[in-house]
């Protein structure tokens, strides 16, 4: 073909001395690949995945507490004191950072008092709730509820999103109620329910606030809960459980971020000064 003196222009309506199937080198010059794709750093990924780990830690803590109360008859005061102290301290911090702190403190106090007293009153009822049911059905029910919680949990990776984990929290509270009904004393029921509510109901809200304003404390909390959970598993359960626990955590904290970064190379987002064509299948839009 004879080389044309006139350069090719991407204009359909002007007659040009080029054949119909001609493709110029400059045709795809405006194509951009992965222009809006965010590249995750390993650090960011670890801090995100640590949220999953944190959730697992809190789950583990409540179940360890249950196991301790149910099987080993451990004292209830130490864990409860620790969790309550942490809750109160966090509450104070949380409120002091807020502008209309007085109202918030009043509300929080009122809520916590209402919850505590209700649990206190309901604990005999809860104790007798599943008395005639066999333990196996309770274990399977609570396992199902934990699985439902893991599925529905909102890990809240993006802080700008609204954090409203209603279903997952409710599932966990129901599970705690079911487990609490296995205890033989009212005090244990009360302690366990209070502990669960502090850890699953109040702590996630504080944690969101911590992640926004006091990131180191959030990391500290993650680390602390992880260590306590690991220590308790080491102390109270057999070695295989500890191994499974460690493997699970290392997978979540190390291998999953690495795998995620490896997967990033498959990202292939195209953008250009054109509308993206939508293929019409079977003649219908």
């Amino acid at each position, binding site marked *: 073909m004879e080389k044309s003196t006139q350069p090719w222009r991407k204009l359909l309506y002007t007659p040009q001395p080029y054949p119909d199937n001609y493709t110029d080198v400059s045709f795809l010059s405006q194509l951009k690949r992965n222009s809006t794709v965010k590249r995750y750093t390993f650090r960011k990924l670890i801090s995100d995945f640590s949220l999953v780990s944190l959730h697992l830690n809190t789950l583990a803590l409540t179940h360890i507490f249950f196991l301790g109360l149910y099987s080993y008859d451990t004292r209830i005061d130490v864990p409860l004191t620790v969790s309550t102290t942490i809750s109160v301290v966090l509450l104070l911090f949380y409120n002091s950072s807020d502008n209309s702190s007085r109202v918030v403190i009043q509300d929080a106090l*009122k*809520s*916590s008092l*209402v*919850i505590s007293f*209700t*649990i206190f009153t*309901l604990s005999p*009822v*809860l104790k*007798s*709730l*599943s*008395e*005639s*049911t*066999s333990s196996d059905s309770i274990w399977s029910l609570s396992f199902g509820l934990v699985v439902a919680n893991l599925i529905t949990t909102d890990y809240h990776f993006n802080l700008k999103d609204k954090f*409203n984990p*209603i*279903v997952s*929290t*409710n599932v966990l*509270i*129901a599970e705690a*109620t*079911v487990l609490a*009904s296995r205890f033989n004393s009212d005090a244990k029921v009360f302690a366990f*329910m209070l502990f669960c*509510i502090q850890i699953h*109901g*109040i702590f996630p*809200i504080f944690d969101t606030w911590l992640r926004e304003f006091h990131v180191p404390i959030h990391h500290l909390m993650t680390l602390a809960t992880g260590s306590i959970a690991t220590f308790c598993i080491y102390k109270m359960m057999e070695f295989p459980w500890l191994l499974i626990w460690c493997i699970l955590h290392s997978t979540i904290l190390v291998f999953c971020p690495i795998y995620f970064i490896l997967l990033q190379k498959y990202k292939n987002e195209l953008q250009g000064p054109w509308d993206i064509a939508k293929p019409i299948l079977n003649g219908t839009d």
Partner: protein
Amino acid sequence: MEGSYKRERAKACRTKANRLTLPFADWRTNTSSIHRILCVYVNHSSVVVVNVITYNKVVELVDTRVLRLEANGSVSLNCRETDVSIVGYFGDAPAKNGSQHWKEFFLDDKGLIACRDSMIVSFEPPLPRSMQLYTASPIELYLSQSLNEKTSPYVDMVRTHGHKRAFTPQDLHFTQSVETLNRCWIKRTLLLTQIPQMQQTWLDDSICRQLRQKISQIPYMIFRIMAKMLKPLSITYLYTLIAARHISLWLIYIMNMKMPSNLPRLIDISATAQQIDLRLQQFSYLPIQYLHTSRQMESHKTKLLPKDQFAEYIRLYNTLWLVINDVTLGYVVSSFLNENKNQIVNVFDKYVVSKVLYSDLNSILMWLMDAPGGIKLNNELSAFLSDFFRWIIEFWKMALIDRLRPNYSTVIRIISVSSLFGATFGIAVFSDMLSILTFHIYYFYLASAKIYHGQLSAIRSLFRLFCGQKKNVLRHRVDSNDYTLDQQLLGTLIFTVLSFLLPTVLIFYLTFTITAVVILLITGLLEMTMSLLNHFPLFILLSRVKDYKRVPGGVACSSLNGYIHLRIKPIALTDMFAPFRNVLQKLQESYLSAPVITGLLVGRPVYVQRNKFYKLLK
């Protein structure tokens, strides 16, 4: 005489009343010496032959003043009745003038009587005295409109434009033609009374007709004498009747009175009150009903009941008959109860009250307390509920049964005495007594239904909270909602507790529902017996058996001696039982329908409004 719908009905008179026959065979073999004139009654273009005059010469008829010779040479019937006239002749034309408007009847090739441009249909004349009747469609057994009831124009509109088959002009014409036949006998009697000479021309095959006529008048004479003797009494009787009617209307008003508070009416709770109400209503309606039917008959001086009053007539006699039956049965029941009083009291006390209602119920409650049938219930709750109900049973026994036990024979006497007013009263009193005896079970059912229903609805709304939703009652939809932490936690806690307690409550609810339904079925069965005794269509059934022509279900055509023969079709069994079947359907609707069953499942208390069934039949 033109038009496609004009029919003629030659009458084959084979009636029982005076055994007048018009043998067709004669007509065929006859020579020219005997001629006949057909007198007819015309109504709406259909022509009914009511009599036939046989003669040798017209002059004889004119001489005996059967016929009248008009000025222009034509002849006409010598009577004042305008709608009976001569329509035609058989044989020679009776007069030179005027006969051209008449029809000529002749024998066709097959030897049948025929007429040009008209069709001949034979029929048996219905006897008004036996209340025989031709109708195009089955007679209405319902009152078309209750006399007291005011219907809205909307209801009327639905009634007329409902999914019935459209009424065509042909239908109307046919109906009118068929109903013309009912007047045949009356017109004929009128004709014969006005022209008595006509009888001499009849072929009367009965010798003792005169005697029979005399004998048939004897009851009337007796009645007339009685009426004359009782006349002074009748005024007193009338006033007594009016007073009794007013009293009964007052009683009805009292029983139907709505109390100022939300109490139910007396007839809603008591079968006896309902039965009394029914009888009083029947009593106060009876004179009106009687006057209605008899006055209608008298006003026409023909003893022909108009078709629209037929339902009223049937109901009047059905009611009377059923009341008499009921009282007779009541005497039997009463004497049976009196004779076997002791055995009945023993069986009732031993098996029904002490066993079923007390010890069996107690043992069921005890059984519910500890894992019935392996179902794991909440021990504390079931123990509480079981204790609670057993305590009420104990109280019931102490307060009601222990006081009633020495007086069982009195109760039986009450039932037997009330049976004297009719078996239905006995049944009603028994049903009420049963309701009072099992009052506690019904309230157990209501209480457990209330608990169960409350728990179910609480679980439902808390489940919405569990999912972070709430019901928007203003817009009838479910919205998502941000609950505060304490609402959420407490809601979930209570939700879990209620869900765990639901099976226990459900078991108690089921137990009491089943017992209450069994009792309800027993009272329902008693009620059905009552409605059978009160509303069984006995009169129409017996009329149907005795003389089906009294209760026509339309007309049927068949071939008879080569003519089209129109005869009365007896009413179908389903039509006869239609009002009754309706009640049975309502009974089934209120005991065994989808809303009732869902109500039972959800724990909505199910009430049976027995009053409803009676409204249908009133």
